[in-house]
């Protein structure tokens, strides 16, 4: 499958035009979306976009390890992980009680500057400190900024309130829900400015140097339930003296076996019919006299 044809590939290679202004990336307790987030950040840094990164749970040093060395100058951190309420010092670096556009003000309103991408790493932590409607509004206003290329919102979909998640999906132009499947897959909703809406479920692999590769449409939903049922198969097989499953060779042999009734069919069939004297054999239409 061509990488540029899949929607996940387009979003992560940033070939989707125009760029979705607000991108929502969610994960759950079972699967962590940080890899995808860093992949997206690297993709922005690679295309000469400055990245403003608001972090709330990891320290900037930890995140820098995942960013390419040569591009790290374009990455600016807002550390909301250390002292978010200003209890340890009078003037905290970042106060999460302020609206987001004020936290990020001096950079997003800079005239003549290059394009910036804004990352909100773990929105639920910001949501602890401010009201939901204010938070949604400030995200929306940030994404409408002139020099803002993209606002990336990262949160856990099972830890934010349901109404907050609905609100985020409402304002997001692209939504990526990471699913706990093997191989990794995600469900995406892409809302184009033309009004077209694309829903897709795509599989991908993430390389150790954080590249999204091998994107293809998910064939079937192989969730963990499937692996659970295969586990029960293993337990059952241990308790019986015969094999319940078939190996590949056995399956091919079974499928190629000619059963008795199929042998009859391969010889071709005959229709036995004794002509009757009331049979109408000529071609003319019996309803010809009806004037329709």
């Amino acid at each position, binding site marked *: 499958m061509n990488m540029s044809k899949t929607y996940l590939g387009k979003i992560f290679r940033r070939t989707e035009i125009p760029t979705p202004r607000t991108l929502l990336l969610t994960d759950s307790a079972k699967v962590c979306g940080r890899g995808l987030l860093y992949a997206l950040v690297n993709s922005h840094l690679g295309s000469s976009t400055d990245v403003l990164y608001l972090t709330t749970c990891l320290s900037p040093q930890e995140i820098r390890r995942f960013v390419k060395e040569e591009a790290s100058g374009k990455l600016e951190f807002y550390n909301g992980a250390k002292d978010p309420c200003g209890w340890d010092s009078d003037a905290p670096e970042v106060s999460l009680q302020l609206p987001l556009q004020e936290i990020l003000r001096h950079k997003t309103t800079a005239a003549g500057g290059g394009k910036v991408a804004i990352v909100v790493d773990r929105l639920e932590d910001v949501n602890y400190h401010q*009201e*939901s*409607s204010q938070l*949604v*509004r400030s995200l*929306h206003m940030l994404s*409408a900024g002139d020099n803002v290329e993209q606002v990336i919102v990262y949160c856990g979909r099972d830890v934010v*309130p*349901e*109404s*907050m998640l*609905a*609100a985020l999906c*409402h*304002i997001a132009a692209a939504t990526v829900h990471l699913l706990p499947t093997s191989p990794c897959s995600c469900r995406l*909703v892409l*809302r184009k400015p033309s*009004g077209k*809406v694309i*829903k897709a479920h795509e599989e991908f692999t993430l390389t150790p140097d954080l590249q999204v590769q091998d994107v293809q449409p998910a064939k079937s939903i192989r969730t963990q339930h499937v692996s659970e049922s295969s586990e029960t198969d293993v337990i059952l097989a241990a308790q019986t003296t015969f094999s319940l499953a078939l190996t590949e060779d056995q399956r091919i042999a079974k499928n190629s076996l000619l059963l008795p009734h199929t042998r009859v069919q391969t010889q071709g069939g005959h229709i036995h019919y004794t002509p009757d004297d009331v049979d109408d054999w000529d071609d003319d239409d019996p309803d010809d006299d009806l004037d329709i």
Partner: protein
Amino acid sequence: MSGPGVVSSFQKKGKTKVVSIPGTRPSIHNSQLLLSCGIPSLDYLIGGGLPVGSIILIEQDRYDVYSKLFLKYFLAEGVMNNHMLTLASLDVPPQAITSDLPAPTDTEPEEVSAASKQMTIAWRYQSKTSQPKTSVGNRFGHNYDLTKSMGTELTSNIDMALWDGSELEEGRGMLKNKNYWSLLQVIKKRIESSNLATSSNKAKTNVLRLGLHSVGSPLWGSEFGYQEKDHKWQSLTTFLFMLRALVRTSFSVCMVTVPAHLFTDPALLLRLQALADFVVRLESFQGSEKETNPVFKDYHGLFHIVKLAAINSLVPPILDSTDWVFKLKRRKLTIERLHLPPELSETVNRNQEDPLNKPIGLSCIGGNLPKNLDF
């Protein structure tokens, strides 16, 4: 007593005032002054048009694709008739909506000559009235082309007010939410400054069209996420209530779209429905399993008519069908009756007998007997 031809001797004192505002016409049913919504098929459904002083509530489709088109048609019709416009939106910049209104076209592209409309096979349907054309001479309703957008030379000389929530005042009283309070103030001032209120004695020469986009969405406030028991809805419900009071007492009509799919508690939607005069719901097939259903393959969504206003009458107009669909052609959006497509495949297995319709009590007589037996 008073048969046809007998003229009553009672006459109204003074001359009856004929209000002549461009783009309006009196209803043939209840003599209300009507305005077109911009979509002739929608005008037909709601009884000829929107009466002046009424509110139409549109429940948005999930991705707000088609509901935005309804709003654009509504505003474009106002532009064509030189009406005053007010557009409020927090989800998208209002300028983005007004700069992309559909361009008017004077010719109906799919006009078929009367001769070719003569039905030869289904001739019995000839006498059946088709949906009447509303594009009559006095320019009530126009045709629009969605592929082109209206030029600025048309929109530039319109008295248009756009509200994007950039100037907010603190809310007061029941309207704690700043957005609702400020918008209501803007509308009130606009009605007062242009003497549109029915209480003012100046002759009315214009009407105000109010378009409110995506009211109640997360950007307006957090009302949508609360349950009824939380008692947090009053900003939104009071807003609509006071808006109705403003619209009723002035020469204005209002189109409100709401993202109903976001409401956590369905009771909120019921309250909003009770406060509006007309309520329609758009159910788009986008992304739902109905998109691939062959029954709906020609259409883009279901059009539910939830509520019709009964103005100057006891009952609202009665529609001859309950299933309506909307369809977005290349150039225009129309609302049509839902017709099932003909079953053309030959392999389909038709089960003629419906097992449910068989009389259960008469199992010993057999199902094929006629119903009324003569003994």
